[in-house]
């Protein structure tokens, strides 16, 4: 049992002040913009909920939101199972463990725009390794500036390359925390590999997998830099996900009102889905 101690507030005060400065003031700015119209020169007019209404009926927003959900769904469907499989087949001890872990973590430490630039160089049709192999060795026409499917395949492969390791490392951390006695008991009972996975490994990984799914959801839902550098949202609008569309509206067209309304809806969706995931995955614990 934790002690009740109201003075503990003093301990969290610095954190509260710093995060509030960064979160509340910009958030109020966004709320402020979202209900006003401006024609420049710092002149603002009351717009009420007009922007929200227009946005919710805007086809452009629906399309971007649809692409965003599709992207995130594909990412989760590939990275979570793949990460678990890789973690299961990794050695549990020995010299190779730190080598594996460090190499796997490397992609996550590369600045996001460099990730985009790296994949751009890697996939250039005549110069890049992948682009050359596809076009000249395998004879598959591959050019993501022209072909929507190629562009999607590339951004998904890039994200799998970038972030699957997060799932691997989390699952691995869960796996190594399982005592050997569990496996011995399973062996005595003659449990199959699947049974060991289903009734020993998966339950032990549940907590870390919850973290993995949440983090992968949030970050893939908010993805901007990598895709912006790699495809710029193209060809056409094919890979214009929510963040990219938002930056286009806010900083490209400088439509502050619509951009602010979109920001708030965007944030609300992220919060809601995260909350949904969290409640669903921790439901059994409370019962």
């Amino acid at each position, binding site marked *: 049992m*934790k002690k009740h*101690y*109201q003075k*503990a*507030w003093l*301990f*969290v005060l*610095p*954190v509260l002040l*710093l*995060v509030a400065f*960064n*979160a509340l*003031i*910009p958030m109020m*700015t*966004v709320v402020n913009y979202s209900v006003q119209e401006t024609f420049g020169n710092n002149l603002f007019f009351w717009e009420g909920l007009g922007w929200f209404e227009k946005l919710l009926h805007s086809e452009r927003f629906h399309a971007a939101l649809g692409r965003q959900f599709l992207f995130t769904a594909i990412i989760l469907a590939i990275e979570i199972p793949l990460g678990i499989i890789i973690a299961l*087949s990794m050695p549990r001890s020995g010299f190779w463990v730190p080598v594996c872990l*460090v*190499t796997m*973590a*490397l992609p996550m*430490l*590369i*600045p*996001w*725009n*460099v990730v985009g*630039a*790296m994949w751009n*160089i*890697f996939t250039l049709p005549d*110069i890049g*390794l*992948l682009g050359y192999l596809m076009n*000249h060795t395998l004879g598959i026409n591959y050019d993501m500036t022209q072909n929507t499917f190629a562009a999607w395949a590339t951004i998904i492969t890039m994200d799998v*390359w970038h972030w699957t*390791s*997060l799932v691997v*490392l*989390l699952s*691995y*951390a869960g796996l*190594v*925390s399982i005592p050997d006695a569990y496996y011995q008991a399973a062996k005595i009972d003659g449990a199959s590999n699947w049974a060991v996975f289903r009734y020993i490994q998966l339950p032990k990984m549940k907590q*870390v997998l919850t973290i993995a799914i949440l983090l992968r959801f*949030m970050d893939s839902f908010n993805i*901007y*830099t990598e895709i912006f550098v790699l495809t710029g949202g193209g060809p056409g609008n094919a890979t214009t996900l*929510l*963040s990219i569309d*938002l*930056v286009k509206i806010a900083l490209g067209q400088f439509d*502050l009102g619509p*951009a602010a309304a979109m*920001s708030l809806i*965007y*944030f609300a969706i*992220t*919060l809601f889905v995260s909350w949904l995931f969290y409640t669903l995955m921790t439901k059994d614990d409370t019962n």
Partner: protein
Amino acid sequence: MRKRTLIPLIYILFLLLPIYWLVAMSFKTTGEILSGFSLFPQTWTFDNYRVIFTDPTWYWGYINSVIYVSLNTVISLIVALPAAYAFSRYRFLGDKQLFFWLLTNRMAPAAVFALPFFQLYSAVGLFDTHIAVALAHCLFNIPLAVWILEGFMGGVPKELDETAYVDGYSFPRFFTTIFLPSIKAGVGVAAFFCFMFSWVELLLAKTLTAVYAKPIAATMTKTASSAGYELGLLAAAGTLTIIPGAIVIYFVRNHIAKGFALGRV
């Protein structure tokens, strides 16, 4: 058994291929890159690296990035340590709500905050300074640091605190001489994550700087768009951005799995 070790091997190969290509590209001349495909650099050149190490706009990009990333790591840890201690040891009014609210900031899309951040930091006169980027990155790094540290602190038995108080330790002395050493790994991991997320973030860093504090990543985007297509130079700059990450990861290599699980296994 052999089939099992094949999977991580293939995965690691897949991870290394694009990195290899970037590094190989950085040693090629522009002429060789544009003339066609070659698996290895035919004529090795260090010109791309020479440009970066002699041109101040390039190497200052690295120095700027390192300055604000270090500042951010220090600030985040200093404020997150007492907060994480409070969350792990005490119950107080609104503690759960506060903890959750902190985490929601980790979910905020950076694109949402880009413009308001620009206005906020311009208004307080910090635009284009290292401290502005360092403070802005606190938005997502402080919640993360609190989360990780709270996880590691939860693993330290409360009896440690009580014994220390009985022995007559004051709180500051207990915290710095007994408690901190016992969560050394957690502090290292938290520092690693702050470094990592501040190092890889570009959108906010780019929005909040113009000349004096411009990060290396922003210098790279300028090159890609303005100076034609200097792929070799771009590749060399990219290669150099991988090195700091590789260095810091070496220090936490033994705690990395537990660290990614935020201390919660």
